[in-house]
């Protein structure tokens, strides 16, 4: 009896610090966002008295629907490119010799640690009208001096793929490493063409890695804000840009909250999928790598 009570006291002592901190600085503020979406703004950048549904109703305007649609589309495109590049890369990594693999893995991980802003900036200067890529494209005759490589949706997708690709390679590699490649050889011996073996044996074999790769790109992509802000134009704004604009330019916190609620709901759908999958996989090690942006 005494040891039982001591044990539960110990549990509380160890749990309380992180639990209370996250309750105060993560859980409560998130709930507050929902709450503020129903409050009116006052003209001085604060919160007005009473309650209103107008802010949420305003989001039904076609202007916002366009932005929501673009956010979804850009995120899906980014995810598709990332997975298409990550699968062969993860495959090649898993099949590399032990010694080589260490070096290659290191090369994949390093960009993941380098500053997010620096990586975006590197692309901004490359795509710049005076930058290298434009010069090369003009020299080969693929672009004329008038073409703008920056400030459009294409540039946004390119830089998003660049930023998120390492995060999609790691889970696919982790799954491919555990995959038994003799299965592919068996399929080939039984007459499957290489591509069919890849599609029907390898891909299902790394399914869990694929799902993680898709989620760790798609979810943060939905919340992108810095990338469209730096390399995008007015026609490539995403929800994140609108939220920032409402906060920093218009000082309208309820409106920013309403937009955030939409984003939270959009993120929640794939998030629930993660939780269901995780429960299925029971108590395997948590294996999640999440990119910084947004």
């Amino acid at each position: 009896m005494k040891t039982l009570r001591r044990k539960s006291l110990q549990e509380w002592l160890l749990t309380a610090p992180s639990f209370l901190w996250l309750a105060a600085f993560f859980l409560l503020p998130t709930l507050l966002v929902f709450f503020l979406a129903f409050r009116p703004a006052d003209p001085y950048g604060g919160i007005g008295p009473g309650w209103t549904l107008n802010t949420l109703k305003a989001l039904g305007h076609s202007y916002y629907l366009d932005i929501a649609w673009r956010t979804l589309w850009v995120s899906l495109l980014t995810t598709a490119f990332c997975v298409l590049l990550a699968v062969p890369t993860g495959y090649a990594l898993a099949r590399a010799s032990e010694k080589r693999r260490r070096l290659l893995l290191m090369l994949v991980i390093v960009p993941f640690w380098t500053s997010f802003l620096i990586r975006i900036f590197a692309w901004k200067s490359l795509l710049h009208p005076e930058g290298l890529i434009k010069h090369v494209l003009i020299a080969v005759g693929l672009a004329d001096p008038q073409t703008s490589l920056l400030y459009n949706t294409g540039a946004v997708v390119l830089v998003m793929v660049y930023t998120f690709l390492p995060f999609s390679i790691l889970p696919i590699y982790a799954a491919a490493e555990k995959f038994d490649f003799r299965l592919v050889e068996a399929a080939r011996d039984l007459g499957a063409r290489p591509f069919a073996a890849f599609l029907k044996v390898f891909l299902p074999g790394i399914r869990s890695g694929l799902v993680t790769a898709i989620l760790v790109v798609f979810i943060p992509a939905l919340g992108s804000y810095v990338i469209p802000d730096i390399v995008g134009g007015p026609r490539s704004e995403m929800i994140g840009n609108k939220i920032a604009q409402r906060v920093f330019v218009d000082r309208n916190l309820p409106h920013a909250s309403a937009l955030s609620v939409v984003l939270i709901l959009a993120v929640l759908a794939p998030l629930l999928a993660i939780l269901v999958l995780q429960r299925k996989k029971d108590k395997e090690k948590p294996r999640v790598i999440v990119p910084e942006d947004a």
Partner: protein
Amino acid sequence: MKRSRFPLLIMGLVLLFFYLPIIILVINSFNASRFGSGWQGFSLIWYRRLLHEPEIWAAARNTLVIAVLVTIVSLILGTTSALALHRFAKSRLQRVHYTLIYTPLVVPEILMGISLLMGFVAAGVGLGLFTIFLAHVTFCISYVALVVLGRLQDFDFSVVEAAQDLGAGWWATARKVLLPMLAPGLAAGGLLAFTLSVDDFVITFFVAGPGATTLPIRVYSMIKHGATPLINALSTILLVLTFTIVLVSQRLSRSNILEGGV
């Protein structure tokens, strides 16, 4: 059987894609040209200019102070959290606790930034370096907790029991057995927290308020206002620092970054 060379080719292109922009940026930081169009000779002028930018150095100092404090606090909170999650894995409280630790990792940064901003505004806390510190600890706890938890799961706990059987008290066990075994995990978690704090822009930007500046905020406004050659030089310095940190952390915990979860 002949193996397809296609995956190797893609991997090569991906690595080229990763490194080409960074390499060009580093080369350009030594370019005398102001606009980076064409090579106009090797020069250290941008590095020298950097010395005369007091704002950058003030921002760097803020970043460093915050990162050190964040690392200490999030190491403490993350480690207690991992110990609780590991020791009482079956309890219902820990299920909730785990969800609370896990969710911040999957929430886009902008959402965390805006909710923290709302929280501080509602509580009447003035925005500044202190709110940046609070925000950074909030997202670092989860990373530290999962890295340390990954370590704990590889442990042989009979050693701890053995120490207790041999008469070691709670404190002696923690200090002489648990801590040394945990050290690599703590180092990896601490380095992760430190780099995340140094690098964070989105959340910091939301909770910084008008006066407080960290290095990423300074870099962002330089990018926005086009001080190109200076950012090249600054970025190169930061890249060298990052590579050093990665090398050190790889030494500390071989491939822990992959196996520890983060």
